[in-house]
């Protein structure tokens, strides 16, 4: 695993998030469920919890966009770059963006699995960089898998606990 330079992390034990825009590929309620599921994967390993807000500015702003979308990292159409996210911090920090030109799926049809991609991007939102372990969720290239068996790899857990410590039982 790797961490960003200066190891940015959230200092509050409760981090807020908001889904500001949706994809027409999935029902809104499904996107909300999958984002919550992705965040839960991380929060069950560390002493951090997440609270969804419906209005205003959250720590982690999540959305779908195509092409240039105001952060100097334009998306590139179908394929290649699927999404990106920013390390913890103010403003754009922590925000996660998904390329609307991909065909997003929850596993019920062909396309890019949103749960797998969101878990990866939210790993960046929490302060993890890319891992060179091919089994890690934080490996940079996308590979489709069975979302029912999808979980963090030991390398992901070691990385996130390096930043935030272990969740007390």
């Amino acid at each position, binding site marked *: 695993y790797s961490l960003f330079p200066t190891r940015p992390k959230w200092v509050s034990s409760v981090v807020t998030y908001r889904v500001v825009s949706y994809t027409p590929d999935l029902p809104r309620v499904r996107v909300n469920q999958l984002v919550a599921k992705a965040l839960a994967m991380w929060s069950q390993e560390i002493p951090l919890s997440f609270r969804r807000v419906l209005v205003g500015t959250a720590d982690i702003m999540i959305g779908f966009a195509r092409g240039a979308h105001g952060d100097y990292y334009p*998306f590139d159409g179908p394929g*290649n770059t699927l*999404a*990106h996210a920013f390390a913890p911090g103010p403003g754009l920090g922590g925000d996660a963006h998904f390329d609307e030109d991909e065909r997003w799926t929850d596993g019920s049809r062909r396309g890019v699995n949103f749960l797998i991609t969101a878990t*990866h991007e939210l790993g960046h939102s929490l302060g993890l960089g*890319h891992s060179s372990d091919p089994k890690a969720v934080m490996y*940079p*290239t996308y590979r489709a898998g069975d979302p029912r068996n999808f979980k963090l790899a030991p390398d992901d857990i070691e990385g996130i606990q390096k930043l935030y410590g272990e969740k007390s039982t």
Partner: protein
Amino acid sequence: LPLPREAGGTSEPQWKQAQDYLRRFYPSDPKTREADSFEARLKLMQRFFRLPVTGVLNPHTIEIMQKPRCGVPDVAE
């Protein structure tokens, strides 16, 4: 001009695609100027993906460059 040795006999579009990929995901460090050359960036990439570190483009390296991926660089910016 012929493509350089690092192009490893690839086509010009693949060479350009590889240059773009390495610029985006393996940016050079402005302080140390590390990974300034194509070969140095390619070696970083090959090391990251646990490939033989040759500094020369080969079909397996190109295959990895063409996979869908996250837009965040693999090395610190």
